[in-house]
């Protein structure tokens, strides 16, 4: 029976069966109807030693190609400082359970408190939860949160300039839960304020979700949006890139009630799509409608400062079907990731990451436009991601780039292509990238 993860010797099993008073381990399954007992072997490979396992993963890994990434679409190749993986591999962090026993979980509880503090600093909001699964599911929860915060209104407006995968997930959740959604059209690459006002006039809108930056990389100007939404007693939420919030006007400064987004931009490995984290921050009037775990500061019996899970009366294990959400976990270890990243970068470093990424992106943008083969799709401000129009054969261009080890721009169709540049790219790489594009 014994294997490196199962310690039972034949002798152990005998001792245990004697104590229990049965003849065999099978006897412990006697209550199960024979017709449902599984009598075959699993159709999976034979056990592998560590050496064989490593070899198998190396073989699979060799079938992938790691590329110099010039695209985004919600996931960006930001640099991950060495310190983070070292600290995350402390098994006191990663082998811990949810901190339901605060006396032996102060490490987890304190870093979540620090995480909440840092995300609140970035969004400008008062409160942040302990994290959600990803940006798209956080956006879906924010949709529910807005409906729950406003009496008898069941419609949420989504900007058409939100990322497509965020729209897809929000639509899925809304469809099953019975929330009405309306897409506010875009005008010249940004949310059409006038069209939004028309929808608001109907009087049934609980809230509005807007992107920052948007699906084209544009930093939208939300002047007048919060007033329009609040005038009809609706809520305004902004789906934001938390890294970019080190420099961009915050959701709170725009007058939003809630902010959400995906934490991948805080130096997290791209890892083929996850794990990352979703965040939700809100103003204090929305706090009790916010889903998910929350950590608060308090004191222990001897007056020591300490941290506990709090406001649990909102959660599923107490409220069951009346809970604000069914979420029963957070992306805790990824919240630690974000916290260490933000501690290392600090208030100046995160600005520098944005500056370097945006400088590289603007350098690439200007070179491509100067070539005459590309024109700006929209004349709008951007940071690290931008959209151009081209007459070039996009598929052929991306194939050429791939051959040389580059991930080219995302193909948005109709000759529109979207590029992204992070601090992980160099001027030399950008020059080479442009040369390959212009070879055609």
């Amino acid at each position: 029976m014994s294997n490196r993860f199962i310690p039972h010797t034949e002798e152990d099993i005998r001792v245990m069966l004697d104590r229990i008073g049965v003849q065999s381990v099978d006897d412990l399954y006697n209550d199960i109807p024979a017709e449902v007992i599984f009598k075959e072997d699993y159709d999976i490979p034979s056990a592998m030693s560590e050496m064989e396992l490593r070899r198998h993963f190396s073989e699979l890994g060799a079938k992938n190609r790691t590329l110099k990434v010039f695209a985004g679409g919600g996931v960006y190749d930001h640099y991950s400082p060495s310190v983070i993986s070292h600290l995350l591999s402390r098994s006191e962090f990663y082998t811990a359970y949810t901190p339901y026993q605060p006396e032996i979980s102060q490490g987890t509880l304190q870093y979540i408190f620090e995480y909440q503090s840092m995300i609140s600093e970035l969004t400008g909001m008062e409160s942040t939860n302990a994290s959600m699964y990803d940006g798209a599911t956080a956006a879906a929860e924010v949709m529910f949160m807005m409906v729950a915060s406003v009496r008898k209104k069941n419609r949420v407006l989504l900007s058409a300039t939100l990322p497509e995968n965020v729209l897809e997930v929000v639509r899925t959740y809304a469809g099953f839960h019975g929330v009405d959604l309306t897409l506010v059209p875009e005008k010249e690459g940004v949310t059409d304020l006038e069209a939004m006002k028309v929808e608001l006039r109907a009087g049934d809108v609980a809230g509005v979700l807007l992107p920052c930056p948007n699906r084209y990389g544009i930093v939208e100007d939300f002047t007048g949006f919060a007033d329009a939404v609040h005038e009809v007693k609706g809520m305004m939420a902004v789906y934001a890139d938390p890294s970019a919030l080190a420099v961009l006007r915050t959701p709170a400064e725009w007058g939003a009630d809630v902010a959400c987004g995906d934490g991948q931009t805080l130096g997290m490995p791209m890892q083929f799509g996850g794990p990352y984290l979703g965040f939700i921050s809100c103003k204090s009037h929305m706090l009790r409608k916010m889903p998910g775990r929350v950590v608060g500061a308090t004191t222990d019996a001897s007056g020591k400062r300490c941290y506990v899970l709090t406001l649990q009366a909102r959660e599923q294990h107490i409220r069951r079907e009346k809970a604000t959400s069914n979420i029963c976990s957070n992306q805790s270890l990824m919240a630690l990731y974000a916290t260490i990243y933000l501690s290392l970068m600090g208030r100046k470093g995160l600005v520098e990451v944005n500056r370097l990424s945006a400088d590289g992106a603007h350098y690439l943008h200007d070179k491509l436009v100067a070539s005459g083969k590309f024109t700006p799709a929209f004349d709008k401000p951007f940071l690290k991601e931008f959209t151009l129009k081209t007459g070039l054969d996009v598929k052929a261009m991306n194939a050429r780039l791939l051959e040389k080890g580059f991930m080219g721009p995302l193909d948005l169709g109709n000759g529109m292509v979207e590029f992204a540049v992070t601090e992980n790219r160099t001027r030399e790489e950008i020059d080479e990238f442009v040369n390959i594009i212009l070879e055609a």
Partner: protein
Amino acid sequence: MKYYDKLIFELSRPGRRGYELPAGNYGTDALASLPGNLLREEAPELPEVSELDVVRHYTNLSNKNFGVDTGFYPLGSCTMKYNPKINEEVAAMPEFSALHPLQGEDTAQGALELYYNLQRALSNIAGLAEFTLNPYAGAHGELTGLMVMRQYHILRGDTKRTKVIVPDSAHGTNPASAMVAGLEVVEVKSKPNGSIDVEDLKPLLDDTVAGIMMTNPNTLGMFETEIVEIAKLVHDAGGLLYYDGANLNPMLGKVRPGDMGFDIMHINLHKTFSTPHGGGGPGSGPVGVAAHLVELLPAPRVVKDAEGRFHIEGKNDKSLGSVSSFLGNFGVMMKAYAYILSLGKENLKNVGPMATLNANYIKESLKDDYLLPIEGACKHEFVFDGLRDKSTGVTTLNVAKRLLDYGFHAPTIYFPLLFHESMMIEPTETESLETLDEFIEVMHKVAKEARENPDMVKNAPLTTPISHPDETTAAKKPILSYRQLKAEQ
């Protein structure tokens, strides 16, 4: 060790830094070119600390934590098994960790092959046709599975089926997931032994029922022996059966949910398949379905063609939609895949039996001091209704806290709600006889302490870094950030 309680913000000194970036030399100043009203007015109050400050701070915090590597976690329904170290290493391989989710199928064939292989392995282990690995956690899997259930009825035009039957002993996520999926919860009663009361179930099965959610073994660790009849009743009434995979571990090698008649299930990779809990996540909650429900699974899907190439498929007409930005927590799946291969067909089948053996051994060893409300062989876990001797006033909470003093994590307490003093114990198969014996000895010792010195036990824990946090004030006057904390001081 000195008690450490600084916040990272309190180490901050203006001008200190923990990063270094290259110069760039682009000759542009992109930030200055942005219109001023698009830039934030006030800089965020992030700490300014050196690299060593960061390393020492978080190392100190880790010392205040308990994990599986620290000691035994008899935490019922949480399956806190050992997290193999090799899994962490392979999941961090740059050939996988540096993959952009949109870089295309051609340059990610290895990742897609792993993804596909894991889908196949889980399908075989579950006895179901197909899996999606997109859901991020158990509760997310429940929600996705219930969306499959609703989508099935909606596509058949049977839109009045909006009720889902949930046992009164179920975990809180079951009814909460049903609510999010737009389903109405109907509770079915448990019999005194914790299993579903079939006579109570029958009248509930009308044409408004979408299906039933069950765990098997149930929350008390007892196998629902009438499962075959229950499956027939639900199917005959036009409903589907959902299997909550929270308690899958003892079934490995013994029973497959699909063979019991379940149509939909989720698996917690962070329970049964050894991926670390990470202090609360990231998890992964793959959802499996029977053949007639495969097309309803969420997009994107990973499929294999006749030539052996792997593809990412977008949304089809029948799919319920999307529940994730991309393909789920891929990094977590890598660890589960490594675990399945490490055990292989020879050992994976022993997981269930050894987990069950461990649980029964503890149960039989402790029932002299602790009240066992349900006799008979349990599976991976069982529930005590507190101490047998109720005269001391020592509660389940007191016992749980006293265990912390002895270097054990507490069991799951006050769940399930069927008993007043529930104490739910699940050892998992990775614990040795010696560890179980130490735990049993300490549990007996605590029972003795409760008789001889109840006040001491009521004041536990006595040796942990902190004692009795004031949770009432924390909830009444929430302080959720350093900024708020500073303002309070």
